[in-house]
């Protein structure tokens, strides 16, 4: 944190001196506020209603990354935020510019990612007249933002920006949108930036109730089969280290949810892997048999409970720690609710927690893992298996990389076969399940960490939803490893049609897509292709040795399914183990 603060202070110091009370335009104020908030990059796309803002940008210290689509911009801002924990910032124009942000806003909302989204709007005298490029974006985004603002008076703008950053980053983080009509961007007023935020109606509880923590500790002392379900809250709170210490001290296995994968080392003896629909056998068995389930910052999503919340963890007392009180009791009935920041909870519990009587239980989980580890059969035709492609990436990096994904089969294989350990090392759309998210998110992550290995893994379907952002990668020479797991179809849809719709493969064939290697070449990006394991290893080495951007197309077995699988509506004991059987 201290280096961040130092960076922000440096940035403030490098600003041209400005006296509070200096008269300036709304758009100048906006950029001034962003700099004062420590924003380094904004992602965006200009247009009519934001012309004043882009005019101010022309001579600003802010670095603006011009994407090729507003959706690319917001996913990049999201990737930046997830890679750093700092708020991502995106700017789009009114009407279509603003509506192109909607998928990205919903993606960030579902995964509690701090974003500040700035949209222009038509001038106020035109609002409500169906003016050119007018859309009621505050209305549209009401259910998918933590809060949103329509700025009516330029004098309110600095306060609103200050509040927006505060709301986006505190409590349960989330996207906040600020809609600025063009007359407000143009209007002038004296600039005063508030030092602090005064919001009487917003006070998230971060300090946990100590009595409830005592109850949790007591429950641990009585438990024989405790598990921790660690969710995205661990990452949002930056509580990775505390979780590791707590789990080791108490000898409690940690089951990271998909959103929590980077919250606990995937190679740790106490980590049986992800639970749920495509989770590991051991983790699902552990959830079925545990007598004490400690949920740290997860939200009992239906991909884990399978929507069968009554039968979920049927033998367990449930402890639920969440910063958002509305999550507690929303899906699963809770025995010990603890509202607060999960890091504070762990810090309070750490000095007092004692080793649980859990040796036999940990052994049992190891045995389940040995019985049915994640596995796949080698291809009879010698074709590359997608799981093998992920393993190759993992082996070559030792997990020291930031991996971004879309949604679908490749996402689940990444979750299964790439063992995460680094802080904020997986960036993926978990809640909304957004195709086309991973590649632009990788752009944001690479801007945030120019020296880290960033691997963008997509399917051939999702990649084509935002492949236009190759231009940004080429333009900024971002050294992203752009991986396409190409099975020439929409794999997860195909899997469901095979299993639940009698092989009636409806509209999943993508075999007539572009030649991805040539596409990369057209952008001046190196493109590589592999379709056997041997080729894959060689090509991946070459990709790793490539200094600049590189696109790697892994042509894989098209009929591969993701296992284990629990069909929707079934309970976790109805796992289908798939190929190994």
């Amino acid at each position, binding site marked *: 944190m201290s280096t961040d603060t130092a960076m922000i202070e440096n940035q403030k110091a490098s600003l041209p001196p400005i006296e509070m009370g200096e008269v300036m335009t709304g758009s100048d104020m906006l950029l001034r506020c962003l700099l004062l908030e420590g924003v380094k990059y904004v992602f965006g796309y200009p247009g009519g209603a934001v012309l004043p803002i882009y005019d101010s940008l022309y001579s600003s210290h802010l670095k603006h990354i011009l994407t090729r689509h507003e959706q690319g911009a917001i996913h990049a801002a999201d990737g930046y935020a997830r890679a750093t924990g700092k708020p991502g910032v995106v700017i789009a124009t009114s009407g279509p510019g603003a509506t192109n942000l909607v998928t990205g806003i919903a993606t960030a909302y579902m995964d509690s990612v701090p974003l500040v989204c700035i949209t222009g709007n038509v001038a106020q005298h035109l609002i409500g007249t169906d003016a050119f490029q007018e859309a009621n974006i*505050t*209305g549209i985004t*009401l*259910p998918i933002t*933590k*809060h949103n603002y*329509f700025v009516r008076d330029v004098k309110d703008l600095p306060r609103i920006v200050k509040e927006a950053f505060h*709301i986006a980053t505190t409590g349960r983080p989330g996207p906040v949108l600020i809609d600025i009509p063009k007359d407000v961007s143009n209007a002038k007023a004296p600039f005063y930036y508030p030092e602090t935020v005064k*919001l*009487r*109606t*917003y006070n998230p509880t971060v300090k946990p109730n100590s009595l409830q923590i005592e109850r949790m500790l007591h429950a641990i002392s009585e438990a024989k089969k405790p598990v921790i379900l660690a969710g995205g809250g661990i990452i949002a709170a930056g509580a990775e280290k505390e979780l590791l210490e707590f789990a080791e001290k108490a000898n409690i296995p940690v089951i990271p949810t998909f959103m929590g994968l980077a919250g606990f080392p995937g190679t740790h003896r106490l980590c049986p892997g992800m639970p749920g629909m495509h989770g590991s056998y051991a983790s699902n068995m552990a959830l079925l048999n545990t007598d004490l389930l400690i949920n740290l910052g997860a939200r009992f999503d239906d991909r884990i409970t399978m929507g069968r919340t009554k039968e979920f963890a049927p033998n367990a007392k449930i402890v639920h720690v969440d910063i*958002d*009180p*509305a999550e507690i*009791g*929303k899906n699963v009935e809770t025995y010990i609710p603890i509202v607060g920041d999960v890091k504070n909870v762990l810090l309070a519990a750490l000095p007092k927690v004692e080793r649980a009587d859990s040796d036999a239980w940990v052994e049992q989980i190891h045995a389940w893992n040995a019985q049915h580890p994640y596995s796949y059969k080698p291809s009879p035709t010698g074709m590359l298996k997608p799981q093998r492609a992920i393993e190759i990436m993992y082996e070559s990096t030792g997990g020291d990389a930031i991996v971004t994904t879309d949604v679908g089969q490749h996402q689940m294989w990444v979750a299964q076969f790439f063992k995460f350990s680094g802080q904020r090392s997986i960036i993926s759309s978990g809640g909304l399940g957004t195709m086309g998210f991973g590649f632009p998110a990788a752009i944001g992550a690479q801007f945030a960490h120019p020296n880290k290995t960033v691997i963008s893994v997509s399917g051939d379907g999702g990649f084509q939803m935002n492949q236009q952002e190759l231009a940004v990668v080429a333009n900024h020479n971002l050294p992203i490893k752009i991986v396409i797991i190409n099975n020439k179809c929409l794999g997860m849809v195909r899997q469901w049609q095979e299993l639940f719709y009698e092989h009636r493969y409806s509209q999943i064939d993508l075999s007539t897509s572009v030649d991805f290697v040539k596409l990369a070449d057209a952008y001046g990006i190196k493109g590589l292709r592999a379709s056997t394991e041997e080729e894959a290893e060689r090509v991946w080495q070459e990709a790793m040795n490539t200094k600049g951007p590189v696109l790697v197309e892994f042509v894989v077995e098209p009929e591969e399914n993701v296992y284990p699988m629990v069909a929707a509506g079934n309970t976790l004991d109805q796992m289908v183990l798939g190929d190994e059987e």
Partner: protein
Amino acid sequence: MEQKHTISILVNDQPGVLTRVASLMGQRGFNIDSITVGQSEEPGLSRMIIVTRGDEKTIEQIMKQFHKLIDVLKVQHLSSGPMVARELALIKVGTTAATRSEINGIIEPFRANIVDVGVSSLVIEVTGSSEKVDALIDLLTPYGIKELSRTGITAISRGAILAKA
């Protein structure tokens, strides 16, 4: 068990607050029986009274979700304690010279007032619990109700219980 609940929420008097509350109800699949909004005891804050249905768990979730709205200061489950709940109805009833005095007799025990007299209709104003308003409407129905306008419930806790900011 599904029951009627009355919830009071104190909100910033800001444009769009009613939309935020109503949108949240829709988004989360909660029913609204009625919603009223007006000034509260403090300038800058409005009070909304929402009548909804659901079991205990649903109501708890509704209240928590209201609390998450940035413009919401306080959420109180009024119907979990002693409260006074009232609504106002304006009822336009068809009349003839013959029925006018009859109607007068009907409304008297309800302490309702006639607030407009037309050639062939009367407008009756009644205030009270929803049950009282329902009862009067039932009695007036045979005469032909031409228009009906109800405000929905507004409510307040009894005695010293405070839902103040």
